[in-house]
């Protein structure tokens, strides 16, 4: 518990950290397209582009879905910085996504 709190604080402070985000989508579905657009917007506005978005289409690469146990799409995994976090859905609820990625409070 305290470990993750510490990690969270560090991530909040270290505004120059680079983010690795893995987004699982399924083909060209509406939710997938929305999620990708939302994530790109978030990267631009809240991370000043300090992020890499790794997009995996589970329809094309089911082994990748098996590896990360991705049963629903879209699904976003914050790979780095640690700890790992997963957010499900098309990411349309921005405040929720920011909170999950420990980016709340950095938008001001």
């Amino acid at each position, binding site marked *: 518990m305290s470990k993750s709190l510490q990690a969270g604080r560090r991530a909040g402070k270290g505004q120059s950290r680079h983010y690795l985000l893995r987004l*699982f989508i*399924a*083909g060209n*579905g509406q*939710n*997938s397209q*929305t*999620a990708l657009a*939302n994530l790109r917007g978030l990267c631009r506005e809240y991370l000043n582009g300090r992020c890499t978005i790794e997009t995996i289409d*589970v*329809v094309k690469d*089911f*082994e990748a*879905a*098996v590896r990360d*146990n*991705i*049963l*629903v*799409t*879209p*699904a976003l995994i914050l790979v780095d910085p640690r700890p790992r*976090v*997963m*957010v*499900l*859905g*098309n*990411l*349309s*609820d*921005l405040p*929720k*996504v920011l*909170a*999950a990625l420990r980016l709340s409070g950095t938008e001001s």
Partner: protein
Amino acid sequence: MHGKRRPIPKVATQIAGLDQILEGGFPRGRTTLVCGGPGSGKTVLGLEFLCRGAMAGQPGVFVTFEERAGAIRMNARSMGWNLAALEKAGKIAIVEARLPGEEVRSGDFDIQGMLAIVGGHVKRIRAKRIVMDALDVLLRIYDDLNRERNELFRLHDWLTDRGLTSVLSVKSHRDDAQQMSQYEFLDFMADCVIRLDHRVVGQVATRRLRVIKYRGSGFGTNEYPYVFGEHGIVLFPLTTAELTHQPLGPKVSTGLKGLDLMLDGGFRRASCVLISGNSGAGKTTLASTFAHAACRRGERVLSLNFEESKEALISGMLSPGIDLRPAIRARKLLFQTAMPESIGSDGHLGRTILALDSFKPNHLILDAVSACLRMGSEQAAFDFMMRLISVVKERGITSILTNQVNGQTSSDEEISGVGFSSVVDAVVQLRFVETDQEVNRQIFIVKSRGSAHSNRRQAYVITNRGIEFTDKPQPPPVRAGSAGRKDGGK
């Protein structure tokens, strides 16, 4: 419609009795819904369908939303199916679909990820069958009934597009209104709907299977009892039992010369004989005498005992000089003992049928009918007896039932036992007769279908050499019109 309905293609489940009820099996390339409460056997049903398919060359994918793959493998192993080997051979794939729990949700999502994973496995092993176990868990990720339905439609289309013969299982709780509406929708979507019911009657668990609907096919509409046998689910579709009873066969010795004489040669094979009497009158001794003699002739006897352990029975029979041990050693005599209240009447019937299948006895002894009442209720005992007698008669097996009666009841009441007198072919009554000086035992043939029998009460004693008649037993009286009858073997 009439005469024009083409039979829809089906996939045999090879689950004992189920294909008979489903008139061939599950609908090929379509969806079957199996619902039932916890412990009703949904997982086992799905597993058995998959394993039997895989062993017959039809690969299948098992998607588990609730249990771990390891637990599924163990479950299968207890039924004698080696999942790991089938997985290795590429005949079965287990997909552990552990759904997100605490993850953050933001916006809409769908089950494409799962379909991709499952689809990958389907392709890899060229699956023809698929089981999705505990689908209700998948539905729980949505709070929205409409979204659930959309996803179910998506799933249903996906399965149908791939031509998979699918079994979806859902947990059901009867008193959940919202859940009921979900299942109505599922019921509508599936082509075949099966309900498993696990209930407790008179403190004894019973399981029943019912087919709710089957699009484009007929099906057995009754509730069918089922049990978990050693190798999977066993159902008892006793739809035509009465029509296939074997006719009564030739005479078979009772093991007692005197009694054979009274019965004009003995009992008839494939008949149902009831030995009734008070406690201590010698019912078990008489039945054991029969078993002993049959085994010595090289025939096989299955002995069901609901009152005594095998050991107690064997040692108890040594006193009247009946040593059953050689017959047991020679595998001619098989004991199956159980507390009547232990597993319920369906369980007892299942065990017995499995024993009949593997041991293939010539004769069956059941000691005692009166103990069967402890299976739960009079109805349970009646069901058990009727079904059991039906099954043994179908197979031409002689059955010897003992029934304990209390006090000095009239013979009519004694025959009725738990109310199955119509299927009993012969009744032997043992009773005590008190005089001033002593208490004596008497044997009397109340009825013997398809055979002449003595009309006399014969006194007997139980010595260390078994049952012995004190007077010379009399053969049946020679009636007018039965000229040429042999002389009773005098």
